[in-house]
């Protein structure tokens, strides 16, 4: 048996790669949401079910990465990013996948139909929220570059700009959400109240998707500000 040299064992797995992998899966998960809403708008319930299953599967895969990352992040790490902040980012990323799954789950389960007049607004809103998740992913993908530069210099600006863009996208989703709620309000009396209630809840969750993505950006800013 050959022992490992003590120098080697100093270099435990950096959390960055698993963090990026996790975000990758989480975003794949969110990517299915616009597809889901398109299928829902087309009243294609078989397709809705299929997409929801795909989302659930991806959410499971993301969970596995999350658990692995948590269990391999020992207490006494000496790293450029505080452990709590890494765990916090994972928690937020995880929320993106969970929200996506919850939305498709409830809508599939309740066979929710989106009223004709708001379909376009819904799809634009969902797409923009997913865009926010993607923008957060781009920033997460820069973490290894940040370590390479030692969190210094122009790489900070690059990431800072990405987060500014993320903020812009998040603001847009807020605007889209208001627009959608207003359009819903105008037609809500013509549909079953309970269905409307749940659609409002969905709108809230879609907005949350962008919110949480925005928070991921905020955490990255914290890492850089140290």
């Amino acid at each position, binding site marked *: 048996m050959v022992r490992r040299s*003590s120098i080697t064992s100093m270099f435990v797995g950096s959390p960055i790669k698993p963090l990026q992998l996790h975000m990758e899966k989480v975003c794949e998960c969110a990517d299915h949401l616009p597809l889901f809403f398109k299928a829902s708008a087309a009243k294609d319930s078989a397709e809705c079910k299929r997409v929801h299953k795909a989302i659930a599967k991806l959410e499971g895969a993301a969970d596995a990465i999350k658990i692995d990352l948590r269990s391999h992040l020992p207490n006494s790490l000496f790293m450029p990013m505080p452990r709590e902040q890494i765990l916090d980012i994972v928690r937020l990323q995880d929320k993106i996948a969970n929200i996506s799954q919850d939305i498709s789950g409830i809508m599939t389960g309740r066979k929710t139909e989106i009223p004709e007049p708001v379909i376009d607004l819904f799809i634009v809103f969902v797409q923009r929220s997913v865009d926010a998740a993607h923008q957060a992913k781009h920033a997460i993908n820069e973490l290894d570059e940040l370590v390479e530069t030692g969190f210094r210099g*122009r790489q900070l600006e690059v990431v800072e700009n990405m987060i500014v863009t993320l903020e812009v996208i998040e603001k847009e989703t807020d605007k889209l959400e208001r627009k959608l709620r207003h359009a819903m309000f105008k037609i809500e009396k013509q549909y079953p109240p309970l269905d409307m209630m749940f659609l409002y809840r969905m709108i809230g969750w879609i907005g949350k998707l962008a919110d949480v993505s925005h928070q991921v950006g905020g955490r990255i800013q914290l890492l850089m500000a140290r």
Partner: protein
Amino acid sequence: MESVLVSHAAIYIGLAVVFGLFMAWGIGANDVANAMGTSVGSKSLTFKQAVMIAAVFELAGAVLAGGEVTATIRKGIIDVSSLGSTPELLVYGMLASLLAAGIWLLVASRQGWPVSTTHSIVGAIVGFGAVGIGMDAVHWDKVGTIVGSWVSSPLLAGTISFLLFRSIQKLVIDTDNPVAMAKRYVPIYIFIVGFVIAMVTMVKGLKHVGISMDMNQNILVAAAVGVAIMLIGSAMIRRINIDPDADRDFHFTNMEKIFGVLMIFTAMAIAFAHGSNDVANAIGPVSAVVAIVQSAGEIASKSATPAWILWLGGGGIVLGLATYGHKVIATVGSGITELTPSRGFAATLGAAVTIVLASAIGLPISTTHTLVGGVLGVGLARGIGALNGDVIKTIFMSWIVTLPAGAGLAICFFFIFKGIFT
């Protein structure tokens, strides 16, 4: 009492050579892998290249620059004048120290404890000196300096590595075109590596192999060595294939390729440094025994370390590397993903410079600890994804255990040898 030394002369020297080889073998088998860890881990060297570089430069370091530390181990820790009419005690003590340190290393390596060869042998010599000969026999001030250097060497390496890494950040990484900047500055870093190592070797090491030059000659030759390897390095950099596609996923891939060339030279430097410092752990005691026996009791404190003993130590290290050490080095390459060549370079050169300086002023220090210091220096500049704090703690704690263990074993063996030969 000279009669004991004369009648057993061949046995004493024979035992010293065997134990010294055993110790050198142990250094080559276990310690070299630590010295090469950052180089192989950053994937700048293949496993085979690492073993070849280690073999050549450990030997070169041992023979060309190992004399000063050997002298410290041989006569710096124990006050030979206090032996008076019983010089053979020093022979028993040195043999006991070699055996104690060698066995302790073997046991510790089997258990996977990161122990330092330097701490084992210094602990052993101090142990037998204080107990076997007497508290007055130990140069406590010198021992204090050595122990102090065990604290300051990782700090110094960390500081140099930190500054080196910050200079890379400023000059190369944080620029509009890191690849172009790397092409411009990496040859200069290569020059620095060559110049520093050559300079220290010539100023302090070469007198032990019978070459002496004045300061101007030293600077000239060191500069020539630096320029020579800089030209070789530049040629290697020109041959690198810069692939813009490679930067798509990780923007610094091509820049790191250029640093890979630098890492090759830095690996040579650390192998050289390790050879120059750690060879003494094996052959310092051997040369002490040989000196006493050959002068038949006249403890010559002035004679230089015979060249054949330096070769013996260097050869033993290479032997250890060839028989077992290459397997340990092979395990180093896997599992380090956080260490890119630019970081590996900063950490390793900081350590190499510190060790070579220590070799030049005759201080036996731990290569592993110094290298850990270098890695931490880069870590403090936020340059490494994650380092395991537990391992760092174990490495630094291990020498607190190693000193009494080495000392205790050496004392036992000392009295056994004393019993056998008298």
